[in-house]
């Protein structure tokens, strides 16, 4: 070994280089950790959902205003309020993937002449499937336009023949803590009162706009959108349209509904879309249509006033919110 003394790195230089390498390493290492933590925690992107099974249905012309367009399939299936799975709308699709929707039965009973347990495939064949392009307005202030596939709820209710004493319809969603993580008891109890329950007045349920949906965009519903069967009530805030229904009960008294039980001051039984009636914590005057940048004005009864306003004539919509 022949090393000249001039080639030996002086001790101070060696130490400062060592410090430099350490400090640079710590800086870039910490940045990698911070960046990963940020992406993991806030999850800006959702993974595209797999496609559903195609359905046969009758196509219809959309009844929308000139400036309204369908919300893309990716957005409809990637941004969902389904609290049983997650309160984070972009995480629902992934978490709901393992949900089994066959076999599936729906118990229809209560104040009816012919109570019956329907198999889901029987329900799908119960009436001709139509495409219904509806606005969907969430109580949180965002909205979509969704091409549902389904048929009027009335068709199913007529099959079981409601008694004259029946005045309300109650919907009960699936209770299965094995696949629905938020139905398990947390440290502080449950997020909401499970199973999820919603309800309508019988005349609202029989209204031709109220449908049972089994699909969207021409395909069977995916779990995140409420597979295999959900109700869609387009003039009410989204939470009224119960998903993954297992039980439909006709009653004489008004059903206790999940969000109303959780926060009665904030979520009423009627929950009709109404820009003039604020949520106690935010205004309902405008909404962000998913896919659009600026907010647009919210319409009374979500734009279906002509068809449904008569259901509430003489009612004070401020107290019956």
């Amino acid at each position: 070994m022949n090393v000249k003394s001039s080639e030996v790195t002086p001790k101070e230089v060696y130490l400062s280089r060592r410090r430099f390498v350490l400090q640079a390493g710590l800086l870039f290492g910490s940045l990698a950790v911070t960046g990963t933590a940020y992406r993991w925690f806030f999850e800006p992107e959702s993974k595209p959902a797999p496609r559903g099974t195609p359905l046969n249905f009758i196509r219809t012309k959309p009844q929308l205003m000139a400036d309204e367009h369908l919300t893309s399939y990716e957005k409809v299936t990637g941004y969902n309020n389904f609290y049983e799975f997650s309160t984070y709308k972009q995480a629902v699709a992934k978490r709901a993937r393992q949900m089994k929707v066959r076999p599936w039965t729906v118990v229809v009973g209560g104040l009816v002449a012919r109570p019956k347990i329907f198999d889901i495939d029987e329900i799908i064949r119960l009436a001709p499937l139509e495409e219904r392009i509806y606005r969907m307005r969430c109580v949180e202030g965002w909205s979509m336009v969704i091409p549902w596939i389904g048929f009027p709820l009335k068709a199913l209710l007529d099959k079981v023949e409601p008694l004259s004493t029946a005045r309300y319809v109650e919907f009960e969603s699936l209770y299965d803590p094995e696949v629905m993580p938020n139905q398990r008891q947390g440290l502080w109890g449950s997020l909401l009162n499970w199973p999820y329950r919603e309800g309508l007045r019988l005349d609202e349920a029989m209204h031709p706009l109220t449908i049972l949906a089994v699909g969207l965009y021409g395909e069977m519903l995916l779990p995140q959108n409420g597979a295999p069967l959900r109700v869609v009530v387009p003039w009410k805030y989204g939470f009224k349209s119960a998903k993954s229904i297992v039980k439909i009960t006709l009653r004489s008294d008004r059903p206790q509904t999940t969000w109303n039980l959780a926060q009665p001051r904030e979520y009423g039984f009627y929950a009709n879309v109404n820009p003039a009636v604020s949520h106690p914590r935010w205004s309902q005057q405008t909404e962000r249509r998913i896919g659009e940048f600026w907010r647009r004005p919210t319409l009374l009864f979500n734009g279906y006033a002509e068809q449904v306003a008569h259901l509430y004539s003489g009612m004070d919509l401020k107290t019956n919110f």
Partner: protein
Amino acid sequence: MSRAYLQLLVLANGLLPALLLAFDALRHKLGVNPVEYFIRTTGVLSMVLLILTLAVTPVRQLSGLSQLIHVRRTLGLLSFFYALLHFLGYFCLEHRCSISSLMSDLANRHFVVIGMASFIVLLLLAITSTKAMVRCLGGRRWRQVHSQIYGSSVAALLHYWLAVKVDTDLPQVCLVLLVLLLGYRLLSRNTARSAVTVLKLR
């Protein structure tokens, strides 16, 4: 580790989420509801940095890592930076920079007022965070002004809590941390006081 290096470390890590946010926005990768994503994310980041700012003193005193004091202002300013983005997102994207629209929201919504109050305090603290300001106000008065961060943090948490529907998991975590950090200060102040009393009695 030198003071400059520590500050660089904190600043770089603190600004990284903003850079990623900007990068994702330019690629249109902020998800399905980008405006909501931007407002929510900047709000949570501001809250996290506020908690980190408040953690500096207890951690420094308990661990003896006295150098940590050099990053307290950096963390506080980062928290203000994200609060500013949060406010601008809300004001410009939700209200289209319309003062009258903002005012009507303030008149009707408590949680917006509370958030705004917290933000204004952070703004004042950011303005008075320079060395010149410390000199101008005098150490004692400056500390008095800057102890308003405690009130601001409580308001920020309340604002966060009221903004979510029923899923208060994250606000609950923030509450536990804030109780610990503010409780530590109450306890250490009381111990300091009783120490003074002991001295006086002697």
